[in-house]
């Protein structure tokens, strides 16, 4: 696969115009995830409404792969039931860790299927997963912190792994 094929038009479009970008209220959990090798960073909020992902908002800096993947992620999870969204996250992670051997289901992953080529570049897999891991972390925290979702707007700023490479 050539690098030009890896950088699909879909990826570049999401990179240029990120969907659901910006930080919004209300939210039950906020996390900050970092890719320590390059400093790419995503500050991400999750708002749950019962068992549904009501909103995901974020402020992020990073490469086109990490930015586009985060944008695609919000398209895929917002409005879904948490269990469904978690299943999509698992399917995306499986494709990304498949070293190019896991094709991925376009019906499930939609625009996310464009990242199939990125899976052949091991160094870039964690770029594609940065936003997803932030969303999973925030959702888990939101579920843990609010037994009855929507009851409060608690902020839970959590500075996760901020270690640096050497």
């Amino acid at each position: 696969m050539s690098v030009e094929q890896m950088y699909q038009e879909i990826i570049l479009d999401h990179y240029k115009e990120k969907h659901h970008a910006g930080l919004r209220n209300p939210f039950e959990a906020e996390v900050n995830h970092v890719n320590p090798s390059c400093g790419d960073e995503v500050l991400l909020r999750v708002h749950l409404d019962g068992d549904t992902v009501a909103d995901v908002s974020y402020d992020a800096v990073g490469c086109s792969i990490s930015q586009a993947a985060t944008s695609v992620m919000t398209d895929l999870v917002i409005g879904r039931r948490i269990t469904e969204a978690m299943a999509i996250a698992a399917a995306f992670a499986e494709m990304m860790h498949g070293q190019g051997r896991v094709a991925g289901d376009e019906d499930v992953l939609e625009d996310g299927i464009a990242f199939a080529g990125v899976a052949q570049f091991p160094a870039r897999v964690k770029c594609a997963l940065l936003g997803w891991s932030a969303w999973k972390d925030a959702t888990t925290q939101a579920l843990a912190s609010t037994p009855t979702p929507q009851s409060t707007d608690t902020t839970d700023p959590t500075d996760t792994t901020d270690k640096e490479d050497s």
Partner: protein
Amino acid sequence: MPDFSLADAVRPDFPVLSREVGGHPLAYLDSANTSQKPRAVIDAMSEFTALHNANVARAMHTLGGEATAGFEGGRAKVAAFVGGRPEEIVFTKNASEALNLAAHTLGQHLRLGPGDEVVISVMEHHSNIVPWQLLCERTGATLRWFDITDDGRLDLARAEAEGLFNERTRIVSLAWVSNVLGTVNPVVELAARAHAVGATVVLDAAQAVPQLGVDVAASGADLVAFTGHKLLGPTGIGVLWGRYDLLEQLPPFLGGGEMIEIVTLERSTYAPPPARFEAGTPPIIQAVGLGAAVDYLTGVGMERVRDHEAAITAYALERLASVEGLTILGPTELVDRGGAISFTLAAADGTDVHPHDLMQFLDARGIAVRGGHHCARPLHKRLGRVASTRASGYLYTTPDEIDRLAEALVYTRDFFSGVARVR
């Protein structure tokens, strides 16, 4: 016309430089990250492993003697290469471990505590930041730092105005050459000023030793850290040089075999330097390889290495400056400047092409550079950048490789500007 003939002369000595990457000849422009290895180093390590392998010092048989001679021979060669004495050369795992050794032992030796100050700079590599942060956390000392000027030099005027060096300053630890900006810091002058207030001076010479050829004794520093793998040597070996009278006073760092005199279950007495700081089986094969590496560099002549580095850096600075949208971080002229060139590249809409994306496109053309924050996040924050792309050459780098870099940068910029996009 500058003389680039050294590269052509030495390239046949480096097997990896003749390989292809992605169907293109490799253009290895990541030597500030790690250097490539000449055949002489590969052969020396291979021959030692095949024919002379044994543990050092404690093995009394013939092979043990040969291994010890190889290991201590490496130490003597490194000492001569940097202008120190063999007993002043402590072998570590890498430059990071050397700096951690310095931080731990100096902190204990100086009885660092609240009110004391440790001075670093904003342009340091993480390995010359974190050990001092940890030391200050352990002891209650205060960490202070030099800022930089807009052109990437240490801001000496501001340091003066802020009284950065004062009677509370106990340790000053600075990069000799910046791994991001390429800046060569005035370490001799700064060491003298630090000594004037009674501070101990540590230098991170990881980039300086390979490029400049240094005289540690003349630098005025008390401790100097560097690494083997940026110096044509193998990974797994670093060096802490120290003035012997200081090393003698420093307590041990890691405990274990070979660093002791007498061990009872209650306490031990410690070997003199450098053995005191080399617990356990040391990097024996690596010392043999590093010895061969400095022999190779001495054979070429560090003056020629330095001249070539200057010529290729000047060429790259000029060539890169001609790429529209490219901004060089750090000094753009060859005054007090080493070979690392970090830059950002803006697409037509003014947004920077992210270094990871850039690196991916260059790699697809066989060009190896580093994209990221180069283990210098505070510096990038100071410069208002998340990350940058760094090209760094060495004695084997040719102007043709720089041309290929410049052309690939133009192509990548156009791709992200939507001009050259392939569907």
